[in-house]
């Protein structure tokens, strides 16, 4: 793999950019691999990457039914934060956030991590108490967050109306090292690094069945033939229930549409990420100048990657109230992704009833931020059978009543 650098750009500039290589190979599937990962979203690719990087397991294929990062990884609003309430969450999300800090260098691929700061507005007394509690929990967990005053909120984000008609801003939970990153680049960077280690990233290859013998996984059936493996990782987000059914078990989650939209590009007006959970909307500004907007999930089971219009209306209404200057803004694009929602709003990283088969899912509305940490933990789980990062996130927590309850902590998506 040719490294990307300022020097390489200068060199290519002198020869009409004819020397760049393909970022990753497009091989045909082999008959079998040590490990197959289903799903080339961020989590699947990161899992493969750390299997190779941390455990030297490189006879790996990542099978993707569509294109790289075409699932939720390429559809999300890229908020990165780790100010969760429960210790197990803080551990994995903070691991991820800290890996994001140096991910561009690590992958030699610019993922545009921008730790511009994330604030979650408190607009009711209940939220004030909740976020104070989270700030204290974060202090114990070693996650740097702070509860800030309305005046500080206004200083950090002058375009916000803090005396808002329905819900004045009473403060905010502020994580200065939270922020955003370029979502596609995260998938592309990991894919390029995986390909460089000799792994096969195989696009347009849909898994249609999971093969097993005596309760142990032996491979998968795909639209490009049968492929054998000794270990299988299912990392397919909204399609987890569907693929789990192929493997013969049910999951405690449901697939629902979550939408986002972006505006026409405007001049820089906001250099932090703002989440307003009570009114149900959040916003940041991309480097291109578009306002990136998201809100809550739709209500019903859905596999169409389209959502209902009235949810967008609700989100936009909330944001116009919070940021009056956007009321004249034109919206450019709107889209949906299928998110896999668990009851406690925490992910599942687990062994499964099928021996040799592991699953990483349930990230729901908020898994982009977790990609590096999830891949790190999932790789350890698949290589060694256990990982401190994933221990609490097993499937058995539902039966045992050990929920990692983040549904109260984060009222809104992402």
């Amino acid at each position, binding site marked *: 793999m040719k490294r990307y650098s300022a020097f390489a750009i200068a060199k290519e500039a002198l020869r009409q950019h004819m020397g760049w290589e393909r970022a990753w190979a497009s091989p045909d599937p082999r008959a079998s691999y040590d490990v197959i990962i289903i799903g080339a979203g961020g989590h699947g690719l990161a899992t493969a990457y750390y299997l190779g990087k941390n455990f030297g397991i490189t006879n790996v294929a990542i099978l993707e039914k569509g294109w790289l990062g075409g699932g939720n990884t390429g559809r999300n609003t890229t908020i990165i934060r780790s100010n969760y309430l429960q210790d197990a969450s803080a551990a994995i999300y903070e691991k991820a956030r800290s890996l994001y800090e140096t991910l561009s260098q690590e992958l030699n691929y610019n993922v545009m991590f921008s730790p511009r700061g994330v604030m979650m507005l408190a607009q009711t007394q209940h939220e004030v108490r909740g976020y104070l509690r989270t700030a204290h929990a974060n202090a114990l967990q070693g996650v740097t967050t702070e509860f800030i005053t309305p005046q500080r909120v206004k200083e950090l984000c002058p375009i916000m109306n803090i005396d808002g008609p329905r819900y004045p801003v009473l403060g905010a939970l502020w994580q200065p090292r939270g922020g955003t990153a370029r979502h596609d680049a995260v998938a592309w960077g990991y894919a390029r690094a995986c390909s460089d280690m000799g792994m096969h990233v195989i696009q347009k290859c849909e898994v249609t069945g999971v093969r097993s013998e005596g309760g142990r996984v032996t491979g998968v059936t795909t639209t490009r033939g049968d492929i054998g493996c000794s270990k299988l990782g299912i990392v397919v987000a909204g399609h987890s229930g569907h693929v789990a059914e192929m493997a013969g078990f*049910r999951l405690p989650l*449901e*697939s629902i549409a979550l939408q986002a939209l972006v505006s026409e590009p405007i001049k820089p007006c906001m250099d932090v990420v703002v989440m307003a959970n009570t009114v149900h909307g959040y916003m940041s500004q991309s480097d291109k100048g578009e306002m990136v907007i998201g809100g809550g999930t739709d209500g019903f089971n859905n596999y169409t990657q389209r959502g*209902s*219009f009235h949810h967008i209306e609700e989100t936009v209404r909330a944001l116009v109230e919070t940021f009056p200057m956007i009321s004249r803004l034109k919206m450019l694009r709107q889209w949906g992704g299928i998110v896999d929602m668990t009851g406690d709003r925490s992910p599942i990283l687990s062994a499964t009833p099928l021996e040799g088969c592991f699953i990483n899912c349930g990230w729901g509305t908020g898994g982009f931020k977790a990609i590096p940490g999830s891949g790190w933990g999932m790789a350890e789980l698949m290589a060694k059978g256990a990982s401190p990062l994933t221990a609490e996130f097993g499937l058995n927590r539902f039966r045992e009543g050990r929920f990692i309850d983040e549904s109260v902590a984060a009222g809104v998506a992402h």
Partner: protein
Amino acid sequence: MLILHCPCCGIDADETELHPGGEAHVKRFGPGASDAEFESYLFGRENPKGVHFERWRHANGCGKWFHAARDTVTLEVFGTYSAQLTAPPQDIRDAVTAKRPGWSWRDFA
């Protein structure tokens, strides 16, 4: 925009009038149920890519609950029926079969 016919008050209600209530016909086991049975009742979901039976409440209308049969891939609605039933009635099954030949009612756990 999803439109469902409320079998309780007879109105074609649009989504903003309705509140979704998740998978229907989830089987609750009696006293003495095993942990696995209770787990499956509380958390296990079919979450199918295709025909789905679900509960809805006509929240901003008559306020009553009902059931709907819907496809999660095409968003097509096959029909709605009473919340009193523990399984989809024959006319609903026939309506699904007409559109999805070979489909069969699974015993949703």
